[in-house]
């Protein structure tokens, strides 16, 4: 490889051309993945915006016409949609925070020298691996059924009889199932955080006379902060889309008590075939997610720059 001196006109131009060419070659392996992603993920989103501006029902394709912002006025004056928005917030925030707290507790328990720790870790990830649709069925019938459900049997000494959990406590049911499912996710992230604590610093604090509570408050929690943030944002991104459990357990009901925006959108699109209105909801969901995603990206890029992951060669 020739080394090119700086400054000299033609030589510098040549160097620039070489660097451009090098970048072009380097870009080649990236292109297939990039093009695929743009085509499969970006075009549908643009089309969603396009459909949201139309009055378009699959059942009446001939009546399709441009409708401006009509679908948006429709959904925002729709009381059910507003209920769905509130439900989405509740059914996202509560499970994410509950699973974070439970996850923190379990991670702390598993970070110690416990008999059979490997087995415990294997068992605790299971709720997250189980197919959500399958878990939903197991909860709905074998655990929460009014007649033969295990929970009612366990609670019988406490005076609980034939409680129809799914219908009378539908929100709590969905929250419980989602929390159960996402706690292992938080455990994994927080456990990784706990284990990345510098052992010598903790030992030094102990030698200096810091108690366990002090060490936890002053050292462990601040260290865990960014792991907790990551758990919250990633958890929120997935849980906000919760559909499986709602579809399988409550079908959004009773009434609209557990209808979140994804489920309402599904009903508008695939039960009422109202493509325009459903698309407008889709646009609102995306807009809301972009807000969460901005926080997510900031958190991830924080972790990212901290690890000094720089490009190489």
């Amino acid at each position, binding site marked *: 490889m020739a080394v090119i001196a700086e400054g000299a006109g033609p030589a510098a131009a040549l160097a620039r051309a070489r660097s451009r060419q090098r970048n072009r070659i380097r870009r*080649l392996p990236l292109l*297939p993945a990039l093009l*695929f992603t743009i085509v*499969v993920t970006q075009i549908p989103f643009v089309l*969603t915006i396009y459909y949201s501006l139309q009055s378009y029902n699959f059942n009446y394709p001939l009546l399709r016409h441009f409708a401006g912002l009509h679908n948006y006025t429709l959904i925002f004056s729709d009381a059910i949609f507003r209920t769905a928005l509130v439900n989405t917030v509740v059914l996202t925030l509560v499970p994410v925070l509950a699973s974070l707290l439970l996850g923190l507790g379990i991670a702390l328990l598993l970070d110690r020298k416990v008999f059979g720790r490997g087995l415990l870790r294997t068992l605790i990830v299971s709720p997250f*691996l189980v197919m959500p649709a399958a878990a939903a069925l197991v909860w709905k019938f*074998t655990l929460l059924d009014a007649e033969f459900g295990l929970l009612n049997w366990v609670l019988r000494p406490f005076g609980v009889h034939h409680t129809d959990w799914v219908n009378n406590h539908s929100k709590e049911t969905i929250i419980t199932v989602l929390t159960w499912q996402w706690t292992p996710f938080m455990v994994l992230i927080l456990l990784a955080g706990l284990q990345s604590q510098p052992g010598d610093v903790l030992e030094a604090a102990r030698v200096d006379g810091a108690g366990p509570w002090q060490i936890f408050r002053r050292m462990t929690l601040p260290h865990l902060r960014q792991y907790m943030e990551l758990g919250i944002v990633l958890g929120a991104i997935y849980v906000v889309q919760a559909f499986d459990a709602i579809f399988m357990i409550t079908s959004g009901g009773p009434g609209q008590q557990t209808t979140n925006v994804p489920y309402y959108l599904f009903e508008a699109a695939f039960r009422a075939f109202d493509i325009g209105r459903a698309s407008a909801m889709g646009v609102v969901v995306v807009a809301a997610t972009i807000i969460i995603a901005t926080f997510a990206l900031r958190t991830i890029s924080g*972790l990212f720059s901290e690890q000094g992951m720089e490009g190489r060669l």
Partner: protein
Amino acid sequence: MSAPTLTRPRGATGAGRLPVRMRLQRRTLTGGLLGLLAWLVVLLFFFPVLWMALTGFKQEPDAATTPPRFVFHPTMAQYQSALSKAGPFLTHSAIITIASTALVLALALPAAYALSIAPVRKWRDALFFFISTKMLPVAGAIIPLYVIARSLHLLDTLPVLIILYTSLNLPIAVWMLRSFLLEVPVAILEAAHVDGASFFRQLRSVVLPLITPGMAATALICFIFAWNEFFLAVNLTTTNAATVPVYLVGFQSGEGQFWAHLCAGATLACLPVLIAGWAAQDKLVRGLTMGAVK
């Protein structure tokens, strides 16, 4: 009070002043209790999974009872009949997840290479573009996807889910593989370069062997997400390409009372991912956080 006594009565004062032996005893006692608590909590969380698998081994009359039967004559009948009914769904799921995972790796490995070992100029932008697509909800795209699939006659076919699951997992795979590629020591690559190894030679005999474990972990993560995916499967397939989650929808109300059969089917649906997840356990967190946490 203030006179320092050399022979303090044992155990009379606070924990800080206890003799070493008792302090140790107390520590092992709390340690033991916390260990017990850990076991209790973890078993509580695992119980629904265990109960599902167990109920699958019951005869129907033993499945829905009060009080629940913990001791029963196990039978394989439910698993056998569930397996024969779930057969086509399991086949579809297997084809779709394996094909999409292979496609993901084929696209993601070169991309991850161009974002780590030989980075393009705007590698940071490209990387964040990939991750941002993962954050947009599928609900926001389902309608055009449905319309496009319908007009291309791809509804209820295997390719539609293969393509969409590839796009769902691609960002995760790019990020994850990149985090593994960054761990390949620069010195080894430089040595290979100095020794005159061509680009493909470097890739084949230096990079690939070093990141095989990383590729395996990435494949398992993609497999898990694709296998469990529900929303797209339910909306875009009905029979010819219906995957395991669609099979489970059949139990949603109608067969609800046949709990043993239901649980056997649910267990079969979960088994592949449980095995994959347990196998990929130590790399799981890396996949779930796209390489941000190791």
